[in-house]
């Protein structure tokens, strides 16, 4: 490969890495705050901003484009907010409507621009599906500066953002300026989206927000590792996808990145330890499939919690029977739990959970509380 190709590839790789890390990290917050689809609206809504910025300044300076896109995206979030708070139109309808109407306005502006005879507007439509190969040095510099700035703000405001994502009421009761923090987090999300538009495109940029976070969520239940993993997945997918599309002809960048991302999500959903679907299926001979095993194990665990100093304290079948459904085969369930090493019969004929059984039961309790959060 010649020197020019090498240089372009390096540029593309750096740019995609920055945008992957930024959107992965900020996407995690959006994911936890149930705002995954807001990214979709913001990225579509950025199109008229890009077109207007170009119409007003006649320049394709990256900072101008990013600023136009960010203003339009931010405006879209405000409009959604006004519609939801001031009318009975539900959130998802407001999102879909704003997304499509802004995008339609963008199209109107683009078709208007295309009538211009000067070729200056060429390349604007690469914003639809992204064109990594069109990245210039100045684009990557702008992306990097903005991306790193966004990440630094996240690091500085870490504690506030964390509280805001998990328990906004509590944050408010501590006297935090919840509204301002909300606004700041939204602005950062908008920033993370617009710096990716040229590479990934307005149509698919929302995947850069949702997918890394959804994948990372399977590997960790703590925020810091989740954000780090999401940033990592975003970086990897961004670099892999955009380099592939820069090397292979007729392979659009945005869709390629989305394919890599989706593969990462699938691997995470299936294989993440403890939570993944594969683990769920194969774990301990699939206890949950058989109707009576699960409750009996949970009852045994509940009883053993009463004897924390001696968790192997035995309990009679009769007690377990009163705790179970009337028609449950408790004795049989205990036998098969014993076969699987989840329960044991003491010398006096009573039953207790084994350490493995207790760990399995605890995991279910955790999973349960997590789901109801």
């Amino acid at each position, binding site marked *: 490969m010649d020197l020019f190709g090498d240089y372009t590839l390096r540029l593309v790789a750096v740019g995609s890495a920055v945008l992957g890390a930024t959107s992965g990290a900020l996407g995690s917050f959006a*994911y936890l705050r*149930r*705002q*995954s*689809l807001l990214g*979709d609206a913001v990225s*579509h809504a950025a199109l008229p901003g890009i077109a207007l910025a170009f119409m007003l300044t006649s320049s394709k300076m990256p900072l101008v484009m990013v600023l136009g896109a960010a203003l339009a995206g931010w405006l879209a979030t405000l409009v959604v907010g006004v*519609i939801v708070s*001031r*009318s*009975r*139109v*539900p959130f*998802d*309808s*407001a*999102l*879909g*409507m704003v*997304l*499509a*109407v*802004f*995008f*339609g*306005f*963008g*199209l*109107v502006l*683009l*078709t*208007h621009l295309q*009538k211009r005879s000067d070729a200056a507007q060429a390349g604007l*439509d690469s914003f*639809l*599906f992204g064109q990594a190969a069109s990245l210039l040095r100045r684009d990557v510099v702008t992306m990097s500066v903005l991306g790193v700035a966004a990440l630094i703000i996240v690091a500085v405001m870490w504690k506030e953002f964390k509280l805001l994502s998990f328990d906004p009421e509590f944050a408010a009761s501590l006297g935090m300026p919840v509204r301002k923090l909300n606004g700041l987090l939204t602005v950062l999300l908008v920033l993370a989206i617009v710096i990716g538009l040229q590479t990934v495109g307005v*149509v*698919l940029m929302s*995947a850069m*927000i*949702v*997918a890394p*976070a*959804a994948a990372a*969520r*399977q590997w960790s239940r703590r925020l810091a590792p989740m954000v780090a993993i999401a940033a990592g997945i975003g970086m990897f997918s961004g670099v892999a996808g955009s380099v592939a599309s820069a090397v292979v002809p*007729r*392979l*659009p960048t*945005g*869709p*390629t990145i*989305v*394919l890599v991302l*989706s593969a990462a*999500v699938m691997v995470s*959903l299936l294989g993440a330890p403890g*939570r993944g*679907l594969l683990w769920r299926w194969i774990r301990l001979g699939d206890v949950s499939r058989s109707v009576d095993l699960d409750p009996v194990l949970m009852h045994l665990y509940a009883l053993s919690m009463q004897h924390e100093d001696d968790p192997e304290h035995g309990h009679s079948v009769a007690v377990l029977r009163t705790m179970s459904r009337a028609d449950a085969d408790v004795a049989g369930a205990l036998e098969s739990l014993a076969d699987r090493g989840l329960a044991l019969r003491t010398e006096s004929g009573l039953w207790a959970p084994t350490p493995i059984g207790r760990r399995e039961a605890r995991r279910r309790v955790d999973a349960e509380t997590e*789901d109801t959060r």
Partner: protein
Amino acid sequence: MTAELEIVLIAVVTAVAAALPGTYLVLRRTAMVSDAISHAILPGIVIAFFLTHDLNSPFLLLAAAATGVLTVFLIESLMRSRLVPEDASIGLVFPLLFSIGVILISRYAGDVHLDTDSVLLGELAFAPFDRMVLAGVDLGPRALWTMGAILVLNLGFILLAWKELKLATVDASLAALLGFSPAVIHYSLMAMVSLTAVGAFDAVGSILVVALMIAPPATAYLLVDRFAPMLWVGATVAALSAVLGYLVAFLLDVSIAGSMAVACGVVFALALALAPRRGLFAQARRRSAQRLDLGVRMLVVHLLHHQDTPAATEECRLPGLHHHLQWSEARTRQVVGEAEHRNLVERAGDLLLATTEGRRLAEVAIVGEAGG
């Protein structure tokens, strides 16, 4: 029929056909599913096209509708696994399917009439060139026939399943209790959405379908309360937006689909601002009326509290009133004017005194209706 008239007709039929299922999407709070479906049907269309090599094959419609239903199924399976919340499930499924479609097109269909731009954006202006010719007779543009058929299908489905759709939308658990399967209704509705999205695809592209499906019903939702009016007001708004959008596009020579979407948005914004009871202006007017009424009540209570005491000459003196009530002078003037207008207060030289009626209002305000 001139080409312009044909375009307007196609636009109106498409908009109305989209607004009908859209009404249910808005009410069922599943509007974003239309976004997901309209993107995700792309691979279905592309694969069916590779198999039939005919963009007009009805097989394309069926394949795309099936892909739409598959999309909904995938989203719901992801949700049911409880590994991913609902909004993220939508955000994971449709980009993947759409990407597969786009990559298939740009890798293998580079030289046929199927490019990403037309898929995404649609081009209504070309619709009249594609004619429906039967036994040598020109029956009009094909898109008009396709969308007309879909419109009739949607109407028929809504009329046939009127009660079931209504019940499942308003109270899904009651519907299940009465023996209607919400799943069957849900998936039929999604099939209807998919079919409409495919049909509209050619004309307006995959993203603007969303505007046609959501914005007119959302507009109707601001204006009316009952089910049937929502459907026909939504359809009327859709038709109106389509005509308006076409006119603007024609005058400015820009994308028809884009301008139709903008028209939908403008009409919604107008309704949001001006709707008789729910609009922003109505809300503001109601709020200021309430504020004024509260002011009048506070004024008469203040007067009643002081007017028979020695401090009356100070507390009830008009020029200093705003000071005692801690209001701005303008607000004081406005409230006093309103109170005079309602014969609750009267002037006695410099002093302002509550009338009998004013006293009664003040007593009611203090001790409540029953006590007074």
